[in-house]
């Protein structure tokens, strides 16, 4: 980012007793940016958000807003507003009182509060519900009241802790876009915690993927999707198919030797930091192409070919998904038409959709690289 970071987390670590929840997190967020913290449960994403909000005191490191260190400030002095997963609406207050509470704390006159509350209600489609109590609202309405309560105070930073996870799948899709549009319109800096990959992709300018208290990768949705820096990120971003291969670096290509699961091929390195030896290959089911075993005519240069046998087929919609036995492994691959069970096929993975990683531990150089991958990612982000 060319701008000076607005919100900066430096070397933040959090430990509950002996368990380390966050381990030296470095994160810089520009003003007006929408950042998604993505990770599976227990990866520390909510803890990071609560550390930024001031509910968790880091054991080491700092949090600063616009150059001001706020690490020791209580949550109410940070100019942030947090939207909780449970919404945490006050059951004894009406919708209007919930939304207006932050303004009441700021000693605003009653008319100003009423005006702002009405504005928020109009903005969020809550008109006519002002006198209701939270118990009388639907899930989607509660979610919007929680959002309105946070937005009413014009926070510099909006923190969202999985605010969509309790909504129906259909409402969730529209609320995603609503929140994103609102954030753009109001120019708020937002941090959104989620475990839903698609939600993060759709909403965020930048995705920060967390893995057991560390940042696994940070970058634009397009970057983390197409250029994952580790096997974990690739798997998390949907490249669930995993095959063990062996190869050597040959110039600007990585030559994969023929194995029990694959035919030999030479994949362009295109910046991949690979070393000779065993590699883990990952690819998405929808990126792979299925062709009958006999059909060898049009396999483009650099394509990884895995001969296999169809185990089963299902129709999730749009295409057929096949489980293909490749050597001892099973991979998933999509095809526009169904293959018969037991048919001999070839799974073709184009080089741009094939993610190769040296397994950690097997290659010391790769392990060292893992420590620097966030720097690498921010370089990419700056480029």
């Amino acid at each position: 980012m060319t701008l000076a970071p607005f919100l900066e987390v430096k070397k933040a670590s959090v430990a509950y007793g002996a368990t380390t929840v966050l381990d030296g997190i470095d994160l810089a967020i520009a003003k007006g940016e929408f950042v998604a913290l993505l990770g599976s449960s227990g990866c520390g994403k909510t803890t990071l958000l609560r550390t930024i909000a001031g509910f968790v005191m880091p054991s080491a490191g700092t949090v600063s807003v616009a150059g001001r260190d706020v690490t020791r400030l209580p949550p109410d002095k940070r100019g942030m507003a947090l939207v909780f997963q449970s919404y945490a609406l006050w059951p004894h207050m009406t919708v209007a009182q919930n939304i207006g509470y932050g303004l009441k704390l700021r000693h605003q006159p009653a008319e100003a509060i009423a005006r702002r509350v009405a504005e928020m209600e109009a903005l969020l489609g809550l008109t006519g519900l002002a006198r209701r109590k939270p118990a009388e609202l639907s899930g989607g309405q509660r979610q919007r009241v929680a959002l309105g309560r946070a937005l009413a105070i014009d926070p510099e930073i909006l923190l969202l802790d999985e605010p969509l996870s309790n909504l129906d799948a259909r409402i969730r899709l529209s609320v995603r876009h609503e929140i994103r549009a609102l954030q753009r319109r109001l120019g708020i800096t937002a941090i959104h915690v989620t475990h839903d990959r698609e939600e993060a992709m759709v909403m965020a300018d930048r995705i920060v993927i967390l893995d057991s208290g560390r940042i696994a990768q940070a970058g634009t949705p397009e970057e983390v999707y197409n250029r994952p820096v580790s096997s974990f990120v690739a798997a998390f971003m949907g490249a669930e198919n995993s095959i063990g291969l062996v190869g050597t670096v040959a110039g600007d290509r990585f030559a994969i030797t023929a194995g029990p699961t694959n035919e030999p091929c030479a994949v362009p390195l295109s910046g991949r930091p690979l070393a000779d030896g065993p590699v883990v290959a990952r690819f998405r089911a929808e990126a792979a192409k299925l062709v009958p075993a006999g059909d060898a005519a049009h396999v483009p240069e650099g394509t990884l070919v895995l001969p296999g046998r169809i185990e089963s087929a299902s129709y999730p919609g749009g295409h057929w998904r096949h489980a293909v036995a490749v050597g001892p492994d099973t991979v998933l691959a999509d095809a526009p038409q169904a293959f018969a069970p037991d048919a001999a096929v070839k799974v073709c993975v184009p080089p741009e959709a094939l993610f190769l990683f040296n397994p950690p531990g097997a290659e010391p150089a790769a392990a060292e690289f893992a420590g620097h991958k966030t720097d690498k990612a921010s370089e990419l982000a700056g480029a």
Partner: protein
Amino acid sequence: MTSLATTTPATGRRLPRIDLWWLPRGLVLGLLAFIIFGPLTNLVLWTVAERWYFPHALPLEYGFSYWQRVFSPRGNAMESLANSVFVATLTVIAALALAVPAGYALARLKLPLRSLILIAFLIPQAFPNLPVYVNIARLFYGLGLNGTIPGVVLVHVTHGLVYAVWIATAAFSAVDRELEEAARSIGASALRAFRDVTLPLAAPGLMASAIFVFLESLDEFTGSFFVGAPDVNLLPLLLYTAGAGGNYQIASITALLLLVPSIAFMLVVERFLKADVLSRVGH
């Protein structure tokens, strides 16, 4: 009992087949009702009995002359009642002043010896009342607190604090912490969040705890006797004197007076106290 006996055959008549289970069920329920309401019926009978002696099963003469005697200016029932209510009110104020911060701390803060602290409040109840209060009376003599209202209130507070703290802890535990955090995150100080969010939400539980303490104080005898009597007259002492003097009518009327707040309390608890608060008592 009689109502049971008449309604069950009625339902049996409506149904095509008679459920033979109504017989043991009716018997058990009837017995239970008798155990609960039998003594109460006896008490009520005594309040309106002018003459009643052995071996007669029912009073020989009914009337309200004893009510007049209890409520006459010369009878000290009204003074005792006023004293009792005054002491109970002061006890509630003192106990809640301690129980609200203590209950909040026990519910929210990760105190290492939380359950130990909760049990410590039971200690006044763990020892036999009599020796404890005799010693308190001795101590209070030295301090000049014996026979004074503050002395009696102090004794009642030690007794009522266990209910107050336990129920207040439960009431505060039932308030989701995120509700407070939501207030903090949009600019409320800790005290403000407590005042605007936690306290109103815990209020029904605190109300119940206040009522518990009030009733405990109204009912408390041993401490009132050793510390208060004869200077501070309270209803249980009046009841004791009347009962010990063989005046069952006055004792019964006093007992009935004591019963009124108890029943009112049950109604209030039923209305205010949610099951999720009660389930957290002692956790």
